[in-house]
Each structure stands twice: as C-alpha cells, then as structure tokens.
C-alpha cells in the first residue's frame, strides 16, 4: 500500500496567471464530460445571440423594408422570418439551460470533491494537528473555502462561450461594415477595462465588508454565549452599545461598497448606449454616402445591445478567480498537511487470551514540541521527559499531578493519539507503533474529560455502528455492530446512565447532540463511559472522565466497573481522593517527569508534593473550620 505521504501536492505553484490556469485546467480535467457539455452549450448560446442579431438585420433589409414599402413580399416569407427568430430563440434557450445546469453540476462536483478530500484529512491527521487548528477554521475550510475554490467554475463556461461569441460578433459586425464594426467592437475592451478598474476598487471594499461581518458575528456570538453573565450583572445596555458599534462599522463598509457600485454600474451600462449612438451617427453619414445599407446599421446597433450583459460574464470569472484561488490555497493547506502516524501491521493479543487485561509499559518516553521563548524566538519544550513505568495486566493505576504537569500528553501517548519523540510505549510487550490500528482501537478505550456526543441516537452513540433497517415485520434485524440492546443497556447501567436514558422520549432511539435532546455535562460523560464499556476493552483510560459527575454517582460507576469489567487494565487521571483510592498504585507526575510511583499510602508517606496535592482539599475545609 503506498503511503499517503507520497501524494503530489494539491497546492498550485507559480505566478498568478499560471496558478489561475492550473486551477481552471485541473477543475475541468476532473469533470471533463460535464464541462465539455457546459462549454459547448455556452458556445451554442453565444452564437445563437449573434445569429439573432444577424438574422434581424437580414430580415430588416430583405423582408420588413420591402414589405412595408410595398415591394410585394409574400406572407409566407414574413412568417418564415418570424419562425426563424423563434427557432434561434429556442436553440439559445436550450443552450442557456444546458450551460447553466452542467456548469452547476461541474462546480458542485469540484466543491464536493474538495470537501471529501478535506474531511478525509481531518480523520487521517493526528490529534496534535487538530489541536493546532481551531475548529472554526477547519469547519470553514470544509465549507466556505471549498465553496470558494469551486466558485469560479459556475461562470466559467459562460465566459468561454462569450469569448467565442465576441469573436463571431466582431466578425459579423465588421462584415456588415468595417467602420461601424470597429465602433461596435471597441466597446468590448472598454467594458473590460472599466470592469477591471471596478474590481480594483471593489475587492478591498468587499474584503473589508467580509472582515467586518466576521467582527459583528464574533461580538454577537461572544455576547450570546455570555448571556448568563450579562443577565447576572444586568449589562444588557453595555452589550447593546458594543454590538451597535460593530454594526455601525459594518453599515459604513456596506455603504462604501454601494457607493462604488453606484458609480460603476451606470458607467458600464452607458458604454453600449453611447456606442449605439456613434453607430447611428456614423451609419447615417455612410448611408448618405451610399457605402452601407440600413440593415448593416441595424445589425451593428442590435448586436451591441444584445452583447452588453454577456460580456460582463468575463468580468465575473476574473472577479471570482482571486476568491477561488484563496479558497483553493486554504483547502490545499489541509489536503497537503502531513504527519500521519504510521500504521503498524502486527496483531495484538495473539499470545494472550483476549479477555485478559493489557500489559502496558512506558520506557523512557519523552515528548518534545516546538515552542517559543519569552522573546518569541523559536525553541523546543519538553512536555514529557524520560517517563518510565509499567502497568501489569488487570491492574488499576492512577495518574496524579497538578494542572499542566503533562497528564494529558501522557494519556495521548498511551492511547497512541501521538507518538513519543523518544522512548517506547509497549502493549503486551510490543512497540505500540507496530500494532495495527484496528487492533489498538479494539483493545483500548479512552474516555476523555470533555465527552463527545455524536448527532445520533443514544444507541448509535454507544455502539458507534450503523443500524440496520427493520425487516418486513418492523423488527430490527440486528445492529450492524453485533451489539444487542441488552448489551447497550448493560453498559449504560454500569455507567449509571440507564436511568436518564430510560426517561428520554424514545429511549435508545432518542437522537441527541446538535439538533437533538440536550444532555448535561455529567450525562454526556456517563454516555461516553458506556461507549467505552460496551467494547469490553483490555485497557480502559479514564482521563478525568467523571469530573462532571456527582461524587456519589462516580463511586457507583467505578464500583460497577470493578465488578463487571473483570480483568481490564485501568488508567485513571483523577483529582478526588476517593477516586485515587480505587487504584492499586499511583504515578505522580510533575513538569513532565515521574516524581514517584507506588501505592497511595506509600506516596502519602514519602512524597511531600503528592501529599500537598491530594490533601489540599481537606486542608481548605479545616482552615474554614478553624476560622469559624
């Protein structure tokens, strides 16, 4: 299997023009059939427009003028003329429809392709990468940026068709009369130049509006999130003023954009009008001189009117390109990100029965990350240094340390959410990096402090498997995971979550998360614990996983765990003394190093830092007693 690291870079390189062409070329190449149909349809549309102008001139000279002047034109040819115009209209309409439909499909497919590529990366890249990137940014990479990157493909076929149309129209006008033709054709570059100047003024103004919109959204978001504080302190007026100030700046930015539009739009509309007048004036002199006939004047004037709007399509593409390039760059930064944790191939548990706990050994584990010193200069920091300890199968070990001691990094390394920079983590004696992903995730369950809940049913959240549709009699055939409802309920019961789940309107089928029922922090944690327990892991890591749960409930969960989970190896990160008391032994970590390891009682006796840490709570109580 080739490593994903070997893929060519998604980012575009070179100057602006080269990058634009690459972007367009790559997009078209990704959907060749769709874009070919769109472009051909657009060309048909462009030629149809010109043809209607040309035909109108021919009809004026050949049918209308002679007929009205009484030169005896047959009624049949009059009808034929009308039919001809209708026919061209029909062809043009089909061209428009196909162009728009297929351009839309192409653009949306490019967009969806980017979304798939980006989200694959989200799943593949390690936690360390995720922690470096704010969720909002990643979400907008998959949403707004993917959309922007595909944005240019919507007007692109139109513009390409228009390009063909301009050439044909130019030829038609010059063929009708070279002098009038040159007046007509000269409008096109003028429109493009004005458009370019327009964009020049417009882009910074729009960027400013977009920025200001984000500012207003930030203020609103923060203010609403702070609602409880605002209510508590009665600062609604203060918040209103803050929001109004941001909104006023946005208003001014919007008006500035409006002002630019107000000036340029009429100017662009003015150009073909003036050119038409020029064609008429010059045309009259040339008709007087007998050089051209009236039809040529009409053809040129009409073509000018028809072409004004389509010509602006080229401007649309030129205007969308910078936005698409920026979107593509931002999407590429995700797609080109590297640093996957390599996948091992070895099986876990060939040698030992699978219902036995996992043996865990850390041997000289260190984690070093890039950092900045006080002056902002790049340096490196050690999150963990030479951490060595073992957890025999079936034992429970508590990891204790103050805030920032390195407990979370340690948990990451143990669960292989990141690899150590030095040293080795071993599962059942084998380097964690050599173990196949599926075996690791099957044997190890990590419950984090901030329990994550999917927008899914309670059952789906516990089993993390897709449910099979009910059979003909309305009975679920099975859950895709092979977990029965009894097993789900059993896991929920140990996690002390069966009570509130039973009270939910649809029990296990209640949808929770974003748009479903809301759960409290403690309920989320209990659900996450059930999710871990149902897998019957061989190593269970509870990273402060019961922090939002009542101490009473926590005791019940841990007691149930001891009873039911049998030989599972457990690692606890905890603060509460009672929780720590459940562990067979304790590892005390400070500043990324193991300070001491042993039983709770041993450490209380010989490790002063440990004693201070775990007894601080009681001390606080005693001090108050004394004060009273």
């Amino acid at each position, binding site marked *: 299997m080739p490593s994903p690291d070997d893929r060519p870079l998604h980012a575009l390189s070179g100057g602006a023009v080269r990058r634009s062409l690459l972007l367009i070329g790559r997009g078209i190449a990704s959907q060749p059939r769709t874009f070919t149909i769109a472009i051909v349809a657009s060309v048909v549309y462009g030629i149809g427009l010109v043809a209607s102008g040309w035909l109108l001139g021919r009809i004026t000279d050949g049918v209308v003028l002679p007929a009205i002047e009484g030169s005896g034109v047959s009624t049949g040819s009059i009808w034929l003329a009308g039919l001809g115009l209708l026919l061209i209209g029909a062809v043009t309409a089909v061209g428009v429809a196909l162009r728009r439909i297929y351009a839309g499909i192409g653009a949306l497919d490019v967009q969806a392709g980017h979304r798939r590529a980006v989200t694959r990366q989200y799943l593949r890249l390690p936690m360390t990468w995720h922690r470096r990137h704010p969720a909002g940014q990643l979400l907008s990479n998959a949403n707004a940026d993917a959309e922007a990157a595909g944005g240019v493909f919507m007007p692109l076929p139109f513009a390409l068709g228009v390009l063909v149309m301009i050439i044909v129209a130019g030829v038609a006008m010059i063929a009708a009369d070279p002098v009038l033709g040159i007046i007509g054709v000269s409008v096109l570059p003028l429109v493009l130049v004005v458009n370019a100047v327009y964009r020049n003024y417009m882009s910074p103004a729009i960027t400013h509006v977009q920025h200001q919109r984000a500012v207003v959204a930030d203020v609103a978001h923060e203010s609403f999130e702070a609602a409880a504080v605002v209510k508590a302190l009665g600062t609604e007026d203060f918040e209103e003023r803050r929001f109004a100030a941001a909104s006023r700046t946005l208003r001014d930015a919007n008006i500035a954009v409006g002002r630019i539009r107000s000036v340029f739009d009429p100017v662009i509309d003015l150009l073909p009008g003036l050119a038409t007048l020029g064609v008429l004036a010059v045309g009259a002199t040339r008709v007087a001189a007998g050089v051209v006939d009236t039809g040529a004047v009409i053809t040129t004037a009409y073509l000018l009117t028809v072409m004004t709007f389509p010509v602006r399509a080229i401007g649309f593409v030129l205007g969308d390109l910078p936005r698409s390039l920026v979107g593509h760059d931002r999407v590429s930064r995700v797609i080109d990100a590297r640093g996957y944790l390599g996948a091992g191939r070895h099986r876990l548990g060939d040698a030992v029965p699978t219902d036995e706990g996992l043996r865990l050994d850390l041997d000289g584990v260190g984690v070093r990350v890039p950092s900045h010193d006080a002056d902002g200069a790049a340096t490196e920091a050690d999150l963990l240094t030479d951490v060595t300890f073992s957890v025999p199968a079936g034992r429970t070990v508590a990891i204790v340390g103050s805030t920032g001691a390195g407990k979370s990094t340690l948990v990451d390394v143990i*669960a292989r959410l990141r690899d150590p920079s030095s040293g080795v983590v071993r599962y059942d004696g084998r380097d964690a990096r050599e173990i196949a992903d599926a075996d690791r995730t099957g044997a190890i369950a990590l419950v*984090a402090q901030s329990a994550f809940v999917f927008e899914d049913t309670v059952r789906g959240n516990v089993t993390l498997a897709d449910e099979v549709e009910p059979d003909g009699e309305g009975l679920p055939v099975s859950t895709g995971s092979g977990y029965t409802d009894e097993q789900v309920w059993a896991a929920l019961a140990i996690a002390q979550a069966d009570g*509130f789940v039973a009270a939910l309107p649809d029990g296990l089928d209640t949808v929770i998360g974003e748009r479903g029922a809301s759960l409290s922090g403690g309920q989320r944690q209990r659900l996450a614990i059930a999710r871990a327990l149902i897998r019957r892991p061989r190593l269970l890591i509870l990273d402060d996983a019961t922090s939002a749960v009542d101490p009473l409930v926590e005791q019940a969960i841990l007691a149930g765990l001891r009873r039911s989970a049998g030989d599972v190896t457990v690692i606890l990160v905890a603060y509460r003394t009672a929780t720590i008391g459940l562990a067979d032994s304790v590892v005390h970590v400070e500043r990324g190093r193991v300070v001491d390891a042993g039983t709770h009682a041993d450490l209380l006796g010989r490790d002063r830092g440990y004693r201070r840490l775990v007894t601080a709570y009681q001390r606080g109580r005693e001090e108050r007693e004394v004060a009273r």
Partner: protein
Amino acid sequence: MSATTPGTSARIESTSSLGVLGTLRAGLALSPAMRTGIGVTLALAVLATAGRLIVPIVVQQTTDVGILAPGGVDVGLVLRLCGIAAVGLFAAAACTTWVNVRLFRAAEAGLLQLRVRAFRHVHDLSVLTQNTERRGSLVSRVTSDVDTISLFVQWGGMQLVLSVLQIAGATVAMLFYSWQLTIVVWLAFAPMIVLAPKAQKALNVAYGTVRLRVGAMLGRISESIVGAQTIRSYGAGARTQRRMDEAIGEHRDAAVRAQAFASLAFSSGVLLSGLALGAVVVVGTLLGIDGDLTVGGLLAFLFLVQIFTGPVQSATEVLNELQNAVAGWRRVISVVHTPLDITEPDEPTPAGPRGPAALDFADVTYTYPGSAAPVLHDIELAIPAGARVAVVGETGSGKTTLAKLLTRMMDPDAGSVRLNGVDLRDIALADLRSRVVIVPQEGFLFDDTIAGNVAYGRPDTDADGVAAALERLGLGDWLATLPLGVHTDVGQRGEALSAGERQLVAIARAYLADADVLVLDEATSAVDPATEHRISRALAELTQGRTSVAIAHRLSTAEAADLVVVVDAGRIVELGPHTALVAAGGVYARMHATWISASE
C-alpha cells in the same frame, strides 16, 4: 444542572408566518430609517429608467426622420439627435448613481436599526440562559440573516426596483408605438406570468432543502473535528467518513436539483424572448403593410422588446434572491416579535435600603413550558438577611430552578419570590440585577485580559482596582503565578485558563458587582485541589456580609452554611443547620455519610 429541558421558556419561532408583503411591512416598521426620503428616491428612479428608453427612440427617429427621410439622408438631423441623446444618457446615468447611493444609505441605516433591535431583544428574552443549544441559530438571526437582506439590497434590490420601472417604462413606450404589438409581447410572456408563482414556490422548496442539507453537512463535518479524539480512540474513522460522504453527497444532489430547476426557469425566459421577437417581426410587418406602423417604429419596437425582456429574464434570479431575503427578514422579525417573558414592572417598588437582604419564597410553584408536571411544588422558604444558605439535592431535584427564580430568570406560575418583602416582579430590573447577582457554574470569559474580565461592565474599575480586589479575595498568590498578572490574556472563552481559574475570575467579577444577595451555582466539575482551595477561600470572602444562596455540590459548602435546604423531587424535604440535619439522621445525613466516604 439544567438537564434535558430543551425548549424551555419562551420559544422563538424559527420563522414568522407573514407573507411577502406582510414581511416587508413588518420589516419596514422595525426599520423606519429605510423609508427616509423614499419619495425623492423613487422620483429619481423614474428619471433614471426613462434614460434607458433613449436609445430605442433615437433609433426610431434616425431611421424614420433621418436615414429614410423623403429627401434623402438628413445627416445633420441624425447628428443633432445623437448629440441630444448622449446628453440624456449621461444625465440618466447620474440619476442612477444618485438613486443607488440614496437607496443603499437608507437600507443600511434601516438594517442597522433592525440588527441592534433584534440583538437587544435576544438578550432580553430568557431563552439564552435557558437553552444553550440554540445560541448558534440565534447568532445567525442578527448576522447572516440580516446580511442576506443587505446583500439583496446591494445586488438584487436595486435591480428589482429598476426592472419593475423598466418593464413599466418599456410598456408605455411600446404602447406609444403600437398597442397591437404591445399586446403581442405581453401575450408571449403570459405563460411565464401564469407559471411564475408556482415555479417560485417550487424553487423555494428546492433551495430550502439545500439550506437544510448544508446544516446537516456542517453538523457531520464538525463531528470529525470536535470529536477527533473520540473517533481516533474508537477507530470510528470509516463510519464517520461514510456519514460525512453521505451528507456531502446529499447536499450536492440537492444543490444540483435546485440549480437545474433555476436554470430551466431562466431559460424559459430566453425562449419566450425569442417567441416575442418572432411574433413582433411577423405582426409588425403585417401592420406595416397595412400602414399602421412605420419602419422606424417597428425597429424601435424591436429594441424596446430587448429592454422589456432583459428584466423579465433576470426576474427569475432577482425573485429568487428576494425570496432568500424575505426568508431572512422573516427570521429576524420572528425574534423581535417574540414576546418578552420577563417584563419591567409598570410601577417599580423600591426594595428597601441596600445591604444584606431578606428573601422569601411564598407558595412557589413552577412548571417548565411544555412539560406536564411542575419541577417545584409549593415552596415555602424564608431566608433572613445575611444568612448563608446551601441548597442541596440530587440532579433534577429542582435546586437550579430555585436559583433561576431567585434571580428572576423566569417568573413562578403561582406564589411569589420576594426580596425584603417586595415581589421580584415589582422591582425595576436594573435595580434587581444590581442587588441580586448570580455566579454561574461556567462563568463565561470574554477574549480579553483578566482585568478586563473582572471589571466587565464596570469601566470605572481600572487594572489596579482589579488587582486590589483579587488581593482582598485572597487571590494575590494566584495572580503572582500569572505571567502578566491582571494583564494576562485569557484567550477565547477563557481557554488559556483552567476551569478552576475561570471560576476565580467569575467570583472576582461578582465581588466587584457588590450585590446584596449572591446566588452561587457551584460547578460540579472537579478542579485541581490547589485551585479548589483558592475557590473556597475566595467564596468565603465574597459572601462575607451578604445574603448568599449556594446551589451546592460540595460538602464543604453545606457544612459552612448557616442553613441547609434539602430539595427532593421539587419539594423542600429538610431544612436546618448542618449539624442538626446530620444529627436528625434523615436524607441529608445519608447524603453526608456517602459524601464523606466519597471525598476522603
């Protein structure tokens, strides 16, 4: 903990049920600035539109009177006509600019009013503090929904106004040349006029589906980001990818469908233009043969058809944007039209002198909207001024509801909550908020410094004042551990601080608020013992000399209280000092015993 009570209190409808015109009326009523000078703007718009008719008229005149003049081409006349027309075009362009600027200015001024009004209304509603899940959607009411209207005004609204005028102007001009041909043109577009409302409705549904799919897709994608750790720990990558691919595909399909539908609607306009043009040539020539129309008249008519069909064709686009804008407008209006559940008293009663206040609950019952049974039944409770009270009880017992009633986040169904004997509903809200302050479980922190956060809402307190306050709360040693002291940035939502440190800031904030009554909603989450110790010390200092009611999760709080209130299933089951309750051997004594064993 306010678990599983979604949709409590006043609901904000997802959208108002107003029609398009009703929405415009209601919207304009909320944004009076939008109507400023509308008469002048419209008059100018008529002039601007008239300018678009210049070219066809000149085409007719030059053809009939100039080029096809009986005595040969009258070049002088044509040049004069063109010169006058050019001046007219410039004047019309100037008018258009002027109209645009006036329109933008009025519209944006009106939208500013709407935005700020909706924002304030959201704060005045109690939903925000009740239902945290819907904050995101409320933010969009004052941001993207208003932006949709603004975008429409900028790109579509102007076009809509000018298009309507242009169609009207072209029709008048066409009537001037030939009423028969005018009828022909209108007949050609008749199918569109008949089918447009239906097509519009279908388009609406199609784009509505797209918006829903975007929401669903973003939900799925955010799982892969926010749930990254869980997905990795459980090897749920393949399943998550499948769920995302599904949502991405569904969005793509819905968007393609809507797009195709819009394309067909648009191209039908092009087809009808062709029909109109053909019909005008045929009927016009026949009329010309009968002497009812000149050649120039027919030519002018052909140009007028272009001027007429242009806006009709783009109408499908503009109307679509209009629908979006109206939908956005409706959503904002529905916020402003949601009645306030907590209202100012008509005649506020002063609630006695400042200083520790007495509180009492008289026969209070409360039921969350939409739920069948009350969460609190007949609560009778008197709290003397200056007492420290701890409310204990299991999750869902109703103790948080008690706190919400006390701070008037909502009003009881029956009975009353009183401060110094005055019903909370009779106290001016500003007065009440300055007297009763709640310290929430998760004190929200703004992206600012510690000083900025502690002094939030009190700009008169400077950094030194904050430092002094922290010192008095016994937090000087904590402050010393911070790199920049009170000037340390707390990061977004205070994420640069630990959960415990965030609580310290919230306590200091309440301290500066200097209230008579403090309601402490204690955090359940365990924090490291050193911080825990600081919190207890600061709380002790904070509650000194005030009445305090703690929704207690910590044993220590109940122990330290003068009065312990035990709530179970919405009723007060035990009441008294800690020692007495422990001695009584009831519910509290049992809780205490388990607590002791759990925390030692």
